[in-house]
């Protein structure tokens, strides 16, 4: 059975009051939503809270989901994205404009992020697997503007196609492609700048 059909069936059962169906939905989608929240919000704690909020909102509005209007995955991604935007607006004043040059910890004498990247690491385009490098990329991602960040996350981390992304972001496909390209290029520039400082 296809994913969309399975999701539609689960939703129908869940709306009818089947608790097992709801648990199945949570089991199937919580990892994906958690990752989306984590990559956008940048913090594991925020991601956990936001994921719970997404499912609470989903549980309340599940009967409003119309199978004929789109895939369930697109629906929950839109739901998540709206919540993330709300969260972004709420935390706008509290957010620290963290720089790659700035210290990542509260200690004044801590090393800047750029200095913590290992010198003898492999080339960037070779695909670095080390944990520190992943953390660096993750932090660079947080420095992108929200529009570019959400576009590249949905495309390169969530593997959604352009049409689905356009539906979620409510912008034309051309704008989606443009944002993705600019987001990727901006991320590469940020990381290259960081590595250039190290070398």
């Amino acid at each position: 059975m296809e994913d969309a059909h399975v999701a539609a069936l689960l939703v129908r059962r869940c709306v009818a009051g089947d608790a097992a169906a709801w648990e199945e939905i949570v089991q199937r989608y919580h990892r994906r939503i958690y990752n989306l929240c984590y990559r956008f919000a940048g913090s594991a704690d925020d991601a956990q809270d936001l994921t719970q909020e997404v499912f609470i909102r989903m549980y309340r509005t599940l009967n409003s989901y119309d199978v004929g209007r789109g895939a369930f995955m697109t629906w929950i991604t839109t739901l998540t994205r709206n919540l993330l935007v709300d969260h972004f607006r709420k935390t706008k004043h509290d957010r620290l404009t963290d720089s790659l040059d700035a210290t990542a910890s509260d200690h004044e004498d801590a090393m800047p992020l750029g200095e913590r990247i290992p010198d003898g690491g492999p080339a960037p385009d070779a695909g670095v697997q080390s944990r520190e490098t992943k953390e660096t990329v993750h932090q660079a991602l947080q420095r992108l503007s929200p529009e570019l960040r959400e576009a590249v996350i949905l495309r390169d981390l969530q593997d959604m196609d352009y049409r689905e992304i356009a539906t979620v972001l409510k912008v034309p496909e051309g704008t989606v492609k443009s944002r993705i390209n600019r987001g990727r290029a901006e991320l590469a520039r940020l990381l290259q700048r960081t590595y250039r400082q190290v070398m």
Partner: protein
Amino acid sequence: MPGKEDIRMSCSEFDALLSQAIDGTLAGDRLSAFEAHGRVCQLCGPLLHEAEAGRSWLKSLADVAPPDELVTNILLRTSGVASTHRQVAGKAEPTSWVARIREWANVITSPVVAMARQPRFAMSFGMAFFTLSVTLSLAGVKLSDLRHMDLRPSAIRRSYYETSGRVVKYYENIRFVYEIESRVRQFKEAAAPAEQPSEQQNNNDRKNKTKNDTSGQPEQKQERNYSREGNQPVFAASLPVNRGPELARLWRAGSPEPTVVSVTTYRRFS
């Protein structure tokens, strides 16, 4: 040249095809034109390289494992049930009616028991029990006597009156109370005769003072009140002339001091 249009492709076309090129869905003449423009254009060429690098950076990011308790928390906050798997398994097992009742009772009592097990509630219950036991022991109530208690209304009423009478008698017979009361009585008796005349005198003084005190009144009224005095002594020398010699003779005959005649004047005041 920066931004210079290639023969077969413009920068805007290049930008539009960039995503497809990176995704690997661009082919044929369009791919050739795209690559040619990328080689020539100083803006679009670096953009292609940066976009490819950025994509490979992003693809290097693996999925993050969510916390173990996330699903449980979500289920508790939404449906209120941690997991349905255990319940489904439980339904399949045949259970006796006693076990069902016990399970049903557990559902009701377990939250109460869990709450009572909290240290603050346990401490409160302990303090309440201690206070009650101390009060009962001070009041002389024995729990073993309670079983013999007659709980009929008439018996309870009789017990109440008997108890209250006993308490009053007990109170009055306490040596300390008795001594205090007798002392108070003695003080009252000792103070009563001395206080009576002095009180009376004080009252009279107060009355006279009030009567004589005319300082706050008009001058004419002060004078009138002054002359209203009842038994005022009048010296004979000060009497009118026609009666003066008669009274002087009386004084010279026997009295060492001028005779004082007490005259009561009656005036009508309008």
